[in-house]
């Protein structure tokens, strides 16, 4: 029996761990690698209408407890991405096609393409904190988000997830807007807008100055977001932010997430992290005679 199995928005995942967007997913074969290493589902790098090279280096700041990145949404563009999806499908797990755009109609077009390419779901990047005119700049306005979700829902039959930013006091309003527009689920959180300064050089390290903070440092904020979202919306939530161990993942599940995405840990600990998280959770479930889905949101029963 598979205790780890989860179901969300009609999708069945053999376990609740997913490869987060932006992690390696520029190419189909690396998504296959993540699946082979135990990810229950994978999310593509965010793909847009045209090819983008992203920002010049430095695009990453590394610290013991976090990364700050400003890659600048590099991607081959939706036309070329079909080839990557064709190989990604060999991974045998559901693929979430992540997309970003500057207009509602572009979002709808990209979502349709992802569905044609075989994506099991669409993830709307409404939350990248470092790309002008994209992501977070739209994703902090509930009305804009509702319009995008509604339009995308009208153009695809696969479930539509909205990945939201924590860089706003209106996170819960935005999530409600997603639900109102018939969105199928919420992914939270994307990175926190951040910078790093080199004291020696007396200047920002990232070429783009601003980047997104991720890794263990953001986990408590991600957990708070998921916990609050679980109270506010009925659609499933996928938790993201600093998941490295099975206990981190379990915290997110108990806070209300039906699945968790793993990002920075792939760089910090390697792809083996999926298997380790799953093994740890499986032992816990076995010892407690429980199944994964029984534990979603249980922390809310004892406050």
């Amino acid at each position: 029996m598979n205790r780890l199995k989860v179901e969300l928005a009609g999708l069945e995942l053999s376990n609740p761990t997913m490869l987060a967007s932006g992690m390696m997913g520029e190419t189909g074969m690396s998504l296959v690698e993540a699946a082979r290493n135990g990810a229950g589902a994978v999310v593509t790098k965010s793909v847009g209408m045209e090819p983008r090279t992203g920002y010049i280096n430095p695009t990453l700041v590394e610290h013991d407890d976090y990364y700050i990145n400003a890659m600048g949404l590099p991607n081959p563009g939706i036309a070329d991405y079909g080839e990557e999806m064709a190989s990604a499908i060999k991974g045998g797990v559901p693929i979430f096609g992540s997309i970003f755009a500057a207009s509602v109609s572009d979002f709808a077009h990209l979502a349709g393409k992802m569905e044609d390419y075989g994506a099991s779901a669409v993830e709307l990047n409404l939350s990248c904190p470092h790309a002008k005119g994209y992501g977070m700049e739209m994703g902090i306005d509930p009305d804009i988000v509702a319009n995008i979700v509604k339009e995308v829902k009208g153009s695809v039959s696969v479930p539509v997830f909205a990945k939201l930013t924590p860089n706003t006091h209106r996170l819960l309003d935005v999530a409600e807007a997603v639900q109102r527009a018939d969105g199928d689920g919420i992914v939270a959180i994307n990175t926190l807008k951040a910078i790093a300064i080199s004291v020696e050089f007396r200047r920002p390290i990232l070429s783009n100055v601003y980047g997104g903070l991720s890794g263990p440092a953001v986990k408590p904020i991600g957990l708070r977001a998921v916990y609050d979202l679980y109270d506010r919306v009925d659609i499933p939530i996928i938790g993201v932010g600093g998941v490295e161990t099975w206990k981190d993942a379990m915290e997110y599940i108990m806070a209300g997430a039906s699945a968790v995405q793993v990002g920075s840990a792939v760089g910090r600990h390697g792809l083996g992290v999926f298997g380790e998280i799953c093994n740890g959770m499986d032992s816990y479930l076995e010892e407690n005679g429980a199944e994964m889905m029984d534990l979603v949101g249980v922390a809310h029963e004892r406050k």
Partner: protein
Amino acid sequence: MNGNEVVTIKEVVPEGKGITTLRFELDRTARPGQFFMVWVPGVDEVPMSVSYTGRVKGITVREVGTATKALSGLKGGDMIGIRGPYGRGFAMPKGKFLVVGGGTGIAAVLPAVEMADDKDIVDVALGARNASEIIFEERAENASNHVHVSTDDGTRGFHGTVVAMVDDILKKHSYDQVIACGPEKMLYYLLEVCKKHGVESQMSLERFMKCGSGLCGSCVIDGKRVCADGPVFYGREISDMLEFSKAKRDEAGRLIKL
């Protein structure tokens, strides 16, 4: 701890035509075959193989673009940003091994010659286009009893490619493993030669790299991250790669045929 650090350059050593070594102190363990992300503020941050792994570390730069040009122009006392070392380096082979360096690839493999710590178990083959690009020959001779040199134009040593020279060496001597770094075209033919002689190999590969720490996926070859799963791969792994010597990714992640 691989995080961002700033180091002061202690010494700048001209090695050959357009080739310069920068030495700096950094209290981190680096293995042969690993690399640093090296930041020149206002210019770029680029991956550079570790050419000296001791306490006083080194990188060896050939001028090919804006970043390497800026690095080559630095003086003692100047500062550079460093992240790393990153990646899977060369594993110490069991038994006797042959280290092969082509062009600036010589800088990446030289620490692998020195890790042997026994002049009898490691032989060396260094190749370049001409004599002025043969670097670290003396360093190799200090660590190995047999150092072979080749140049494409015959201005030093064996007249021909380093691969042709290695083919000759493997006909006369047997090794348990070959360790190599150089242009991909050279590695392609070298791998064929190794297979012909039934020798396992470890080779350091190169792809366009952005984050350097296994996150962004810019440098993948057949789904493997050159920065984190490599840059050193075994010959048996490389043989299974469909993109090796055939295709690479551009800055947007598009597949470009070679």
